[in-house]
């Protein structure tokens, strides 16, 4: 093969993928950035009024709006709690799996995989049915007929959070389980012989040995939980009472489409993209450290 052929070939293989992804992301990101510096609403979409360049006007509006800060705050808190709960449940079950017999292990992993594969849409409707105010199963069992789980802001976040974790812990469980399996049995047995409890050997052996993997799982969960959309959108009917349960992703979408404030919605999108970009950089660094060739 000639030198020129050697250097050109890889790009031939990459060409179709790049040809799809570059415009698919390039155009929307470019447009988000562009729209975010224009006054662009329904009047401009319909062509009734000219679009005017307003520089950082949308950003100024956004940063001066207490609602933006409160949504940003609750997005961060909601995501943080979800990450912690997802990890706790996922890690606990991963440890249980390593000790379970054949059949319990199979049953548990099948149940978890099914929850992972179920569409976010289906999960949302089932959980809404379970927590229905009038005659839902949960209210009947608890004897609190008529209690509305979708009224108070944080109670609502609790139910939506339980649904999100239901979908997302299986992946964490499976990844950590595979990681634990990769730890030599002799190491775990030695700890048990030395009288370490399950709790101790988890914190002193499994966690330190799996630190790179755990970092990756944590960052993946952060990214995933930070951009939750479907469950909030469906379960709280687009963001809850007066938008009290909105998160950044839903807020950007609703501002652009619901209120036809395309410029402002784009500005929210840009802010969100920048936050995710920072997290992603940490992710790439963590991958690099595990020896993933990057």
């Amino acid at each position, binding site marked *: 093969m000639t030198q020129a052929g050697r250097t050109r070939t890889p790009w031939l293989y990459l060409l179709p993928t790049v040809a799809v992804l570059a415009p*698919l992301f390039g155009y929307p990101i470019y447009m988000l950035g562009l729209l975010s510096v224009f006054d662009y609403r329904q009047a401009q979409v319909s062509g009734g009024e000219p679009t005017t360049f307003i520089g950082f006007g949308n950003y100024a509006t956004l940063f001066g709006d207490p609602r933006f800060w409160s949504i940003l705050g609750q997005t961060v808190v909601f995501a943080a709690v979800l990450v912690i709960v997802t990890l706790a449940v996922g890690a606990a079950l991963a440890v249980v799996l390593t000790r379970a017999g054949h059949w319990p292990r199979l049953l548990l992993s099948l149940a*978890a*995989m099914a929850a992972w*594969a179920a569409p976010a849409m*289906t999960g949302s409707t089932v959980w809404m*049915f379970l927590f229905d105010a009038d005659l839902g199963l949960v209210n009947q069992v608890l004897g609190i007929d008529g209690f509305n789980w979708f009224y108070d802001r944080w109670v609502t976040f609790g139910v939506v959070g339980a649904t999100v974790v239901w979908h997302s812990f299986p992946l964490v469980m499976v990844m950590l389980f595979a990681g634990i399996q990769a730890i030599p049995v002799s190491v775990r047995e030695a700890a048990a012989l030395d009288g370490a409890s399950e709790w101790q050997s988890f914190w002193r052996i499994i966690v330190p040995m799996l630190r790179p993997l755990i970092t990756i799982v944590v960052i993946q969960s952060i990214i995933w939980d930070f951009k939750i959309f479907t469950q909030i959108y469906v379960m709280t009917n687009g963001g809850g009472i007066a938008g009290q349960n909105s998160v950044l992703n839903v807020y950007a979408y609703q501002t652009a489409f619901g209120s036809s404030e395309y410029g402002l919605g784009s500005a929210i999108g840009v802010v969100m993209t920048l936050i995710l970009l920072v997290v992603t950089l940490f992710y790439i660094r963590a991958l690099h450290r595990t020896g993933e060739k990057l």
Partner: protein
Amino acid sequence: MKRVLTGLGVAAIVAYCLIPFYWMVVSSFRRTADIYHQTPLPSPWSLESYAGVFDEGTGFGQALLNSAVVAVVTTAVTLLIGTLAAYALARLDFRGKNVILALIIAVSMFPGALLVVPLLKLFTSIGWINSYQAMILPSMSFALPLTVWNLTTFFRQMPRELEHAAMIDGCSAFDAFRKVILPVAAPGVFTTAILAFIVTWNEFIIAVTMVNDVDRQTATVRIAQFTGAAKFATPFGTQMAAGVLVTIPLVILVLFFQRRIVAGLTAGAVK
């Protein structure tokens, strides 16, 4: 005492996993009038909700078909072009490879809800609204990075001797890839296909934004809009039945290919 507590904890989590499924299936077989019953099994059993799902006017059969078209085409195209890219990234040396890999990861983090705002404008202006391609192309924004990343990890694990032997025997690099690597890599490609299919089948934001024609809506969007379709009763029964129908193909895939899916999911994360 401690063992009892651990046992209870595990039981609670298993219940947490299973009860929503169980209740969805059981409730889908109740009569509409019995939808709030708490008996562990429906009495009497009824297919009323399933009949409701396929009633004229709900168009759920068409919606399942639309979901299948979008998911199958997206998966097929994604695999076709993603396999090539993954091979280059795993096996060929060239400048800019790390940048491409980092970009693949970065774009897979990008929220779909942000993508659809500008894309809707674009698709409106070129008349793509209510078309399959308006769902298929944006779906590749998450299916393609997933595929490339998974397959890259997979190809890396294969012994290099494979292509070397083929190329010594006179195969070109592409022939070596097509005739030697691909057949050996089939299980990994297959797993990736299942993952891509599942994420595309479950997609909601793109489908709900790009399509407003009932005949082109996918199943996940259709379920969300059942509220308006059932006039006489709460739509929970039909929603549960529809939920069962949408989830069944995925659960079957998971049941049959559990090991491979797990292997595919952990690819790249565990060495």
